[in-house]
């Protein structure tokens, strides 16, 4: 207890972190330190306010090897693979910090739940292929003794991408890459398309690519709960709180060519308990940012991007929340059971939902029409003006439809190249990212979790090489652009 008081007063600087380091944060003058110590000693003596026994069961633990900021599907996937790939059972203590345990604003549960292999980058295709294999064998990966098996409600109906004249060559090249990686995709001409799906209006469509296997949609809430259950059974601790501060130390070094570099290391994560001013400084070895749409804010807290623009220190994490609407409508004469998830060349998409002629769909707005991401209110006029015309043009039966429900969710949008940020930060040596997937995070989560766990445990990517998705590409300007974005 005296040690705790000493730590509060004097900080970890005296415990010997090596020469040449200095702590960021509060550096009080000597007089201030003396008066602090006096106050602490007075409170310890009988009659003072401090008592050695207090209940901290509502607080997160004081030490944790890995702190994962964000408890959505990506954060839980990283936690799962860490516990699964650790060398000795129980070797790594993991803490998952989640601000909202109802997941009311989390992108995972508000997503449409699709999974596809029709991407243009080979890394994305490989991530998706592994994730689909994970989902297929989910009851072997996430089995917990005596708990019922998971039913993901997977619809293997496939994705149908339609391309106009301009996009046809790109689509052909993409399909070639997809087939090379092992995805089962077929190309269809407008005549074949009309024969197979008579309810489509093929006007303006030059080429279509249809995923035959391993594509479809599933229930993301089930995956989230399955991961949560399994990860808790493996010994990962959960904390209901918000990260408010990172305490780090800097190391000024020089490269061989004489350039000055400042490497930082995070020592503590301050987790503020929900609905209270109390916070707990969690001492940690590694921090993983998997906070989805709020990853940009968390990265700013950690000091990423605070530096002269154009330098590596000044490169921010370019992930910001973008609001997307999803509408559920009923159309009695609509497409039948065979309808895949259809993506129009204009960007509108829809899929069948259930057996009662209900359909889910949406449309990604252009940069100028982006709605304000401050809240999750739904704009119904957006459907009338932007979504419905495209849908009705593509599927004539959709001219008579009735919107039943609508909701909005966030994309953790990577403004640089709309692909995920995975792996360590070059300057903050113990921080890792698993965020920024801009709408296809859910379908790549199991594979990304494994990749991040491999980087943390082995030091490099072993199964899928995600070097094009490292943070350093923002500084070097190398875009890993994905062309098939819905």
């Amino acid at each position, binding site marked *: 207890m005296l040690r705790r008081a000493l730590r509060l007063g004097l900080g970890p600087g005296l415990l010997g972190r090596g020469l040449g380091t200095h702590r960021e944060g509060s550096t009080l003058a000597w007089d201030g330190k003396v008066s602090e110590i006096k106050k602490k000693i007075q409170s310890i003596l009988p009659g003072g306010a401090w008592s050695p026994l207090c209940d901290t069961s509502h607080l997160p633990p004081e030490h944790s090897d890995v702190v994962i900021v964000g408890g959505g599907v990506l954060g839980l996937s990283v936690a799962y693979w860490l516990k699964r790939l650790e060398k000795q059972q129980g070797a790594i203590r993991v803490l998952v910090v989640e601000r909202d345990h109802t997941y009311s604003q989390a992108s995972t549960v508000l997503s449409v739940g699709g999974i596809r292999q029709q991407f243009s980058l080979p890394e994305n295709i490989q991530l998706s292929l592994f994730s689909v294999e994970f989902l*297929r*064998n989910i009851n*072997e*990966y996430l*089995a917990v*003794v005596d708990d019922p098996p998971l039913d993901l*409600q*997977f*619809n*293997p*109906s*496939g994705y149908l991408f339609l391309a106009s004249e301009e996009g046809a060559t790109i689509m052909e090249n993409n399909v070639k890459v997809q087939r090379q990686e092992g995805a089962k995709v077929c190309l269809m001409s407008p005549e074949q398309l009309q024969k197979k799906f008579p309810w489509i209006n093929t006007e303006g469509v030059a080429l279509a690519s249809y995923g*035959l*296997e*391993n594509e*479809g949609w599933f229930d993301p809430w089930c995956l989230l709960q399955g991961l949560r259950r399994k990860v808790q059974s493996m010994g990962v601790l959960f904390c209901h709180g918000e990260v408010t501060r990172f305490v780090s130390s800097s190391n000024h070094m020089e490269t061989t060519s004489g350039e000055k570099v400042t490497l930082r290391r995070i020592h503590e994560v301050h987790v503020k308990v929900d609905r209270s001013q109390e916070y707990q400084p969690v001492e940690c070895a590694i921090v993983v940012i998997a906070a989805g749409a709020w990853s940009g804010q968390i990265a700013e807290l950690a000091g990423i991007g605070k530096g002269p623009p154009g330098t590596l220190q000044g490169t921010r994490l370019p992930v910001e929340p973008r609001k997307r609407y999803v509408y559920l409508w009923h159309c009695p004469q609509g497409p*039948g*059971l*065979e309808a895949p998830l259809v993506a129009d060349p204009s960007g509108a998409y829809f899929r069948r939902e259930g*057996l009662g002629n209900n359909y889910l769909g949406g449309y990604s707005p252009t940069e100028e029409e982006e709605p304000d991401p401050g809240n999750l209110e739904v704009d119904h006029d957006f459907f009338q003006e932007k979504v419905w015309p495209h849908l009705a043009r593509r599927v004539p039966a959709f001219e008579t439809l009735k919107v039943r429900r609508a909701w909005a969710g966030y994309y953790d949008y990577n403004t640089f190249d709309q692909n995920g940020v995975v792996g360590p930060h070059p300057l903050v040596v113990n921080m890792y990212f698993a965020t920024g997937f801009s709408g296809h995070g859910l379908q790549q989560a199991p594979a990304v979790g494994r990749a991040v766990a491999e980087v943390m445990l082995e030091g490099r990517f072993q199964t899928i090489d995600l070097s094009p998705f490292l943070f350093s590409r923002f500084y070097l300007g190398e875009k890993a652009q994905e062309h098939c974005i819905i």
Partner: protein
Amino acid sequence: MAAPRASLRLVAPVWNGGTSGIRGLSRAVDPEGSPRKGRTLLRFLADRFYDVEAVREYLLQKQVLKVLQKNRSFTYIKERYGPYVAGAYFILKQGGAVKFQDKEWMRPNGRGLSGELWKLREVPVEAVDASGCAINYQGLDNLLALKELQSLSLQCCPHVDDWCLSRLHQLANSLRELSLAGCPRISERGLACLHHLQNLRRLDISDLPAVSNPGLTQILVEEMLPNCEVLGADWAQGLKLGPEEQTRDTASSPIPA
């Protein structure tokens, strides 16, 4: 796939003695002096909770491995005798029946497979009856190599699920008859991907417990495959009778379902 535990963590039982611990106290307070046999067994198992859990996990892993072993791919037979013989061997090993073109049904007899199987290298397989076999997603590889398969019966297969149905599109050119009756894991989501099988003329989807609405599913599948005769639930099953039909129904004899 999760690897089986390398070692069973069998902890040596700690004998508490009669007096130490809360359990000892309660035993001392327990009015019934001699506990019944069932209670000692339960207490014995409860004391060794983690060991029992490890044993159960081990037994579960053994079951899973058994199914995987049955569904391995027979690459040697495929290279030496061709895909038709490999597929037929797979089915016969599982306990199903195979019919080659212009031949009779071949079933596994008690003493092993008949010798004439190995001579049928060039003869395509026409029909497969895999009812009750433990075929899963991996094992389906052997069946999908049979490109001239016309009739496939997967009745009451416990491991055939929606993922397996999504692979059947590879048999779309030849498959005329398909039976999925009684499979516990197939739902309407898997039936949706049968629309690739445009040459199908007979489809049996009766008695599928995982399908949420059998009557509606029947109608939707019939619409999806217009040239196919779909056997399954009666579309009126599951519909509630209106008030006037109810009184009429109780008066007359019950309508056969």
